[in-house]
């Protein structure tokens, strides 16, 4: 029966491949870490670096947005949820109903930069002006309303770039800039921090907001003032740490109860000097005074 032989060889190969891939003896412990797209690259860097600290612990990192991470914590499918906004009361209640107890850890700060195309002559923008551009009922539609003419932008109409609504960046911007009003209709809602920067970089008419860590060499960041005509502050790690930059927010990790065991060790390491220097290196502000040499 040559056909049967061939089939069994195939099956044998398949299972052999499976066994080889799954080999390896040491007892390893997996930490599930999911959530914010803002934090995902830092989380990845932490996971990568933690291999040298404790090779037995595997940190599995996934993105999807702050909402995704918190939902997973509520469902009990993750050990640590990353969030660029605080958990809502409604979510806390859901979690409690599910037998979970979300505990907040501040792991760093993020300055939300207002991005403009490299050719845009605008240097300063105030929170009020941002609200006029972004909020429902806001009156600014053209760059002329801000007193500038943007070269390469055909009808001077502002292309408003925002984020999808389960993003923590979206939630924070809405709270801090729009005063919890709704966004205008017709914004371009991007599905990632980097997508916002990519679009604004290529679109002369555009304005967008995203984490400072996503800045590139070809894009301009506006100096943000609390009030129109007031003194403005440039987004930077330093101005986020000292609180002078008006739109900087804390970055959170949530665990189920006070973390113990490997998750506890990992959280402590993240909050230690070593962990905090990694977040600094990624362009965010550390939660503690980190000494990184």
């Amino acid at each position: 029966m040559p056909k049967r032989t061939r089939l069994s060889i195939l099956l044998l190969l398949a299972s052999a491949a499976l066994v080889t891939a799954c080999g390896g003896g040491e007892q390893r412990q997996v930490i599930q870490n999911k959530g914010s797209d803002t934090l995902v690259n830092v989380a990845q860097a932490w996971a990568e670096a933690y291999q040298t600290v404790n090779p037995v612990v595997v940190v599995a990192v996934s993105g999807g947005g702050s909402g995704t991470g918190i939902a997973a914590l509520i469902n009990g499918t993750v050990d640590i949820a990353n969030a660029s906004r605080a958990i809502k009361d409604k979510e806390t209640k859901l979690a409690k109903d599910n037998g979970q107890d979300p505990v907040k850890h501040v792991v760093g700060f993020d300055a939300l930069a207002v991005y403009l195309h490299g050719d845009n002559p605008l240097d300063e923008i105030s929170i009020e002006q941002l609200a006029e551009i972004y909020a429902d009922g806001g009156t600014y539609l053209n760059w002329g309303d801000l007193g500038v003419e943007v070269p390469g932008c055909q009808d001077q109409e502002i292309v408003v770039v925002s984020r999808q609504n389960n993003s923590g960046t979206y939630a924070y911007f809405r709270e801090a800039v729009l005063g919890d009003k709704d966004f205008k209709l017709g914004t371009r809602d991007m599905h990632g921090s980097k997508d916002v920067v990519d679009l604004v970089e290529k679109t002369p008419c555009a304005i967008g907001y995203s984490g400072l860590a996503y800045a590139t060499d070809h894009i301009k960041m506006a100096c943000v003032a609390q009030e129109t005509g007031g003194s403005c502050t440039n987004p930077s790690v330093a101005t986020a740490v000292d609180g002078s930059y008006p739109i900087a927010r804390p970055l959170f990790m949530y665990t189920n109860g006070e973390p113990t065991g490997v998750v506890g060790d990992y959280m402590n390491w993240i909050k230690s000097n070593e962990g905090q220097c990694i977040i600094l290196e990624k362009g965010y502000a550390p939660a503690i005074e980190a000494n990184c040499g």
Partner: protein
Amino acid sequence: MFEATQLNRKNKTRQRMFSIGLGSMTGLLILPVALIMGMLIYKGAPVISFEFLFTSPTNGMTAGGIFPALLGTVLLVIVALLASVPLGVAAAIYLSEYAPDNWFTRAINLAIINLAGVPSIVHALFGVGAFVIFFKFGTSILAASLTLAIMTLPVVIVATRESLQAVPMAFREACWNMGATRWQTIRSVVLPNAITGILTGVILEVSRTAGETAPIMFTGAAFFLPLLPQGVFDQTMALSLHLFVVSTQVPGMPEQLPFGVALVLISMVLIMNSLSIALRMYLRGKKKW
């Protein structure tokens, strides 16, 4: 002797026109494939190296290789095949060889067609609900592969059933007349003659499974994992998701790297397909009708 009339000439011109017109339309089909492959090879080939294929990513995934993702995709495909091929082939055998033509069979056929039409993101959510949470597999290779298996099941069933039905009825009748049972007939006459068609279904499944992103994103594939998976209950990285991640999520990514990942993904599918096609041609060559 026969002078071409005006009508003859007109028909001839029209015939040529359509031949060229339709032919060039067909030629256009090759264009996207050629462009995609050309672009990927041109931009992606420089990053392909032994290190790229067989080491782990480093430095925030902007350097190093893609081995965990490559291995992850292979594992996901194998486990999905192990689940869907036996199930799909068995169902197809029943539907084609045993099932009477009644409302129940027709309902099953309808369900299969509908299953094939369900968007992959819906399969993904089903996978989360069923495998990750209800069966408590967690986000794991098993959960992701089972989701993929369910998604590709219709392909296997339809391809298998069609190839079974392509085996002439006379073969079965001849066998039954010799006193063979239905199963003996299936085992020794129908299946050997249908194996090429079944393989086609499997080929299609492999291609689709390897490329899918949505169903594995929530059920088993991770953005990043520092180590390789040790078993089917571990999470894994996967090429398709890795391609999404390196092209949209990571700042400071070298421009070539996403093209390299895409090239590896598409080559993997092409190589698997060619192997299966070669096997199919070999088996077909042995066919006696």
